């Protein structure tokens, strides 16, 4: 019979950019991305040395560092190498974000004193600890300009100075507020000066340009840069430039923040510009492409030169733990997210013209960053779903990422978030849903396989170290494997250990606030975050309107598959005893090959198999319950203000045990302060790295092998179509997971694919999915590239052999990046996960 097999589609590079201008800019960006960019990084000697003056409050020092950074960027002598004071031919949006990324680190002016540095080491904090992971209120700047913020600062400084001259009581709080407003003023002035420097550059360039059109264009750029972000934006061009300058100023300080609901932000300006006839639709798309290209300016599109760009230190913004991340995979992670579509605050659909134009520009540019995310819901217009599908099919960059409002909005609302705010959610970091321009976000992770190890082994890891009797202890003692008589005994042990690990995260997130204020205040961001500016309280002092704390489970599908194998073979078939399984896992199945084969053949998540889906559901129920319990407990420890002395003593004692010796955080930060905990499941891009140190698991996974990406089926275990995964979602109650629960799926590239992609998007929403990333990849091509990369790693081919593939981007769990820049483990995971061959 003739049954044509999947045949590789062409490997041609789709043309990028909708106009000659953006095509040119993208190819220039690509050339730069393929070169050695190590020389473009700032060097410490480019910054002034006198910022870290112990006599100056830390928030003012930080603002001074911010100003120093923005000045250093436009210093011509620095720009000869950093190239941060350049306007590329044809650019419409200007300004250059200096090199820096989650994986490669940051180079910043030093605002910390020597003694702060020595102490902060104790809690893994330092200059690079700005956390990012927020979404500033860009609309505030578009509407009122930085001028409105500066006016507020002037007024408040005058008021506070007056009050301070005639103190009616202790004035310590007044001093802090004064420092805050001074710091905000310094930061905003620095941004305005930076924009003016680009206006100067554009004018100077115009003066030496012979082409009349280009001259006019440069003069327009100069006009825009003189106006925004100081003044409110009117035209689309002004709005995009204004948002970009703020984005640049935050990212320049290593504050990797997101952009938010760009379609809602620019829609009024787009409409004004279209209606005035100043631009047409095509020009609007071109402007947006120019904006995206600027955000992507820091890309490395080859892994050949990454080591020389390693500027990551131990405290680069990942909470209170020393850095634990896959640097190679994160080399192109900038945490910059754009959100389009979704619901309005009043519950109506928010789709506007700009929504479509951004999707179109994203597909045209085909860049892996910034991450464009689309919010869909049951009432999304059919045309929008179709546009998203077409963008995914055409872009080749795995964008947009898809969010289901029907799951995420109820989940956030259930975490005590006002419904209007929940409907207005945005995305930060890798994929975390947060609130728009008014919340701070921190998170912690719990590895479900570690929990399972403890459950199987009386609270110890399954390490095979002769110095430990059982393995290294990580949790409470629970019954030894020989005493876990029924499957429910194992489940009970699991629940107990899960509670232990979730508690640690919840307490740790409160602790984060106890130390953050002392090291990395963020005045510019705080000025754009909820009521921080009104209150004069930095967000690191607990000033944000809402503080979200995400508790995110990794390896949840791995744990479900492992439990399914144990339930079937130990408690069902009784072919193996639990102690035998524990012994086999400790030696990574060596000498237990038959068991390994049996376990691999057990039911696996992603195949619509009720024999494992019920365990996924159970794990999710347990996770959700553990987060609710942990929230109650952590709130009590850090927020309680008991009046009775014995109770006060009890709470003080608990706080001391957590390493916090202060009053209730409500007394410290204000009565509004309360971390709202949300639960989620995912790994960001760290699944390969996080698998290191995790022992063998009963699903048939070997010791140190990668975890499954995010909350996706384990690569290589899916026998059904994507319809199977989506139908499984319907029974999981994913509308409880406000911190996000992510499926990464990879579909085989095919001609006329958008119809199918559209079905996948609709199926995702209809089945109550939460977040889904969709990479479109040619399985055969990925394999070919992975093999080529191996050759390059083994020095059998020059790195340039990969250049022609540098345009292919896929999802890394937390962001999108060129496939050729991955590690071998990441590439192997990808090759194994393509679904639904054409």
């Amino acid at each position: 019979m003739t049954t044509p097999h999947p045949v590789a589609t062409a490997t041609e590079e789709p043309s990028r950019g909708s106009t000659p201008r953006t095509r040119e800019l993208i190819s220039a960006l690509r050339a730069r991305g393929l070169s050695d960019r190590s020389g473009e990084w700032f060097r410490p000697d480019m910054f002034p040395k006198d910022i870290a003056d112990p006599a100056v409050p830390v928030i003012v020092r930080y603002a001074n560092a911010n100003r120093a950074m923005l000045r250093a960027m436009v210093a011509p002598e620095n720009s000869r190498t950093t190239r941060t004071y350049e306007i590329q031919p044809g650019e419409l949006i200007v300004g250059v974000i200096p090199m820096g990324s989650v994986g490669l680190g940051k180079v910043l002016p030093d605002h910390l004193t020597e003694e702060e540095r020595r102490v902060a080491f104790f809690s893994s904090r330092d200059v690079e600890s700005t956390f990012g992971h927020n979404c500033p209120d860009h609309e505030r700047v578009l509407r009122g300009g930085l001028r409105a913020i500066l006016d507020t600062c002037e007024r408040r400084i005058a008021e506070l100075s007056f009050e301070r001259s005639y103190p009616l009581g202790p004035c310590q709080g007044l001093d802090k507020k004064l420092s805050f407003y001074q710091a905000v003023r310094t930061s905003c002035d620095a941004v305005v000066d930076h924009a003016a420097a680009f206006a100067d550059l554009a004018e100077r360039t115009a003066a030496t340009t012979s082409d009349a059109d280009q001259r006019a264009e440069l003069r327009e750029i100069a006009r825009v840069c003189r106006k925004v972000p100081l003044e409110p934006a009117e035209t689309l061009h002004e709005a995009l430039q204004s948002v970009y300058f703020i984005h640049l100023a935050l990212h320049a300080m290593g504050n990797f923040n997101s952009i938010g609901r760009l379609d809602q932000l620019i829609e009024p300006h787009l409409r004004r510009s279209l209606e005035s006839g100043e631009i047409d639709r095509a020009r609007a798309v071109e402007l947006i492409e120019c904006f995206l290209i600027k955000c992507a300016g820091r890309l490395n599109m080859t892994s050949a030169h990454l080591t020389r760009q390693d500027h990551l230190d131990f405290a680069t913004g990942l909470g209170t733990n020393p850095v634990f991340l896959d640097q190679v995979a994160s080399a192109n992670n900038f945490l910059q997210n754009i959100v389009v579509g979704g619901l309005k605050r009043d519950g109506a659909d928010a789709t506007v013209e700009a929504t479509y134009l951004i999707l179109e520009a994203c597909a045209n540019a085909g860049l892996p960053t910034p991450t464009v995310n689309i919010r869909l819901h049951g009432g999304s217009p059919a045309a929008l779903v179709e546009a998203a599908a077409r963008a995914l099919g055409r872009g080749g960059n795995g964008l947009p990422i898809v969010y289901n409002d029907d799951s995420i909005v109820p989940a956030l609302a259930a975490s005590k978030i006002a419904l209007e705010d929940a409907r207005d959610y945005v995305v930060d970091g890798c994929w975390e849903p947060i609130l728009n321009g008014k919340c701070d976000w921190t998170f912690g992770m719990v590895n479900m396989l570690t929990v399972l190890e403890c459950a199987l082994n009386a609270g110890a890891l399954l390490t095979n170290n002769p110095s430990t009797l059982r393995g290294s202890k990580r949790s409470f003692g629970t019954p030894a494997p020989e005493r876990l008589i029924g499957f429910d005994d194992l489940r009970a042990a699991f629940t107990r250990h899960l509670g232990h690990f979730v508690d640690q995260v919840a307490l740790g997130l409160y602790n984060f606030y106890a130390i953050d204020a002392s090291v990395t205040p963020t005045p510019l961001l705080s000025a754009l975050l909820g009521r921080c500016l009104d209150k004069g309280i930095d967000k690191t002092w607990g000033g944000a309107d809402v503080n979200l704390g995400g508790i995110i489970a990794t390896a949840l599908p791995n744990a479900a598959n492992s439990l399914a194998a144990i339930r079937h073979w130990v408690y069902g078939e009784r072919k193996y005893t639990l102690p035998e399984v524990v012994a086999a896992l400790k030696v990574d199945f060596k000498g237990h090959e038959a068991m390994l084969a049996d376990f691999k053949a057990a039911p696996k998540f992603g195949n619509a198999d009720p024999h494992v889906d019920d365990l996924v559901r159970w794990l999710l129920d347990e996770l959700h319950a553990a987060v609710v319990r942990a929230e109650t407990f952590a709130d009590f420890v850090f927020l309680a203000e008991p009046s009775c002395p014995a109770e006060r003593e009890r709470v003080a004692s608990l706080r001391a045990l957590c390493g916090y010796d202060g009053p209730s955080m409500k007394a410290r930060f204000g009565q509004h302060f309360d971390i709202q905990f949300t639960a989620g499941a995912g790994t960001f891009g760290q699944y390969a790295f996080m698998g290191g140190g995790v022992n063998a698991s009963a699903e048939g996974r070997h010791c140190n092998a990668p975890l499954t990406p995010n909350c996706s089926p384990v690569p290589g275990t899916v026998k059904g179509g994507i319809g199977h995964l989506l139908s499984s979602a319907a029974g999981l109650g994913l509308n409880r997971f406000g911190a996000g629960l992510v499926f990464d799926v990879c579909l085989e590239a095919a001609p006329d694919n958008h119809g199918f992609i559209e079905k996948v998007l609709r199926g995702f929403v209809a089945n109550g999915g939460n977040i889904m990333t969709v990479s479109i990849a040619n399985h055969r091509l990925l394999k070919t590239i992975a093999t080529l990369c191996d050759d390059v790693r083994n020095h059998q081919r020059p790195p340039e052999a990969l250049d022609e593939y540098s345009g292919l981007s896929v999802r890394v769990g937390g962001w999108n990046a060129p496939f050729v820049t991955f590690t071998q483990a990441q590439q192997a995971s990808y090759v194994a996960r393509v679904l639904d061959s054409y």
Partner: protein
Amino acid sequence: MAHDNDRLLGDLSVRPLDFVDVSWNSGVDGPGRRVVVYLRGCPLDCPWCHSPHTRSFTPTLLFFSERCRLCGRCQAVCSAGVHRVEANAHLLDRSRCVACGACVRGCPVSAGASHRAGALRLTDERLPADALFRWLAPHLQLLGDLGGLTVSGGEPLAQAEAVAALLRRCRDAGVHTAVETSGIGSASAVESLLELVDCWLFGLRPLPVDHGAAGRVGRPDRVAATLRRLVEAPGRRRILIRLPLIPGHTDSPPTWARIAETMAGLGLRELQVLPFNPDAGHYHGALGQPFPLEGLTQDPRTVAEASAFFAARGLDVAVVSGAAVAALADTTPHLPILPPSKLEKESRA
């Protein structure tokens, strides 16, 4: 693989479906996007076959050497002595194989692996129609009106009763159905499917017997009778004639003329031309057999010529193949490439 296809052909009214594989999102096996069930067993022995692992009516062992890690587990668990693993080679004596599957279950890279990942596989999938439908349903539901289910082969007519049961479930669930056939099968098999198939994919080409090749049971009379029955049946369904362009077999104008003539005689208009699959030898390798057409390639112009030939005779021609589509785009920009949306409208009409 000693088996008597003629005998099996007469006795296939067993309830479960024997199949080899499922493809979840095919764009080349019928209108729109299809879930495709590849049945096991085909009475033909076409030398160009690119799914030779579906020929046998009994389970067959497939071995993908590039995925073997030479661990020797298969040798240890195989009581028939099929496997011999040496320092740098894994040798198979397939004549000893009793298709028990012990080696597949014992292989650390094959047990539980999806079909892409394992080194060893047995073509022994077997499910009753109801169970198979339940297994396919989540994805069929997702596809909805974008496509449907295609039963391919092997030869569906050889398992007509079981196929009918599966298609009946599809009809009840509103799933569009297609059957891909060579037309070789009993008249009663054809009758049992007539009302259940929305679209026939009919492989019309010179059978090996016409060429005097080493074919088994190419019966042109049977093919013609089946096709005539499909055309003349009351409530006639859509019929897509499919022609693989095989170098040296079906890629010349005399063959094309016969196809065009047959189609004209029956009033059939829709023809799908399938360019030679450059990877057609893949499963021959997994079966440990030489591929009779090894090393052959096809000039994309041949595909264009064939299309032009048929188009000139008033037929609606479409080229169906991912790679060929891309390759053809350069040489013949105006060749119609059937968009799924167009197929969809017609099939629903």
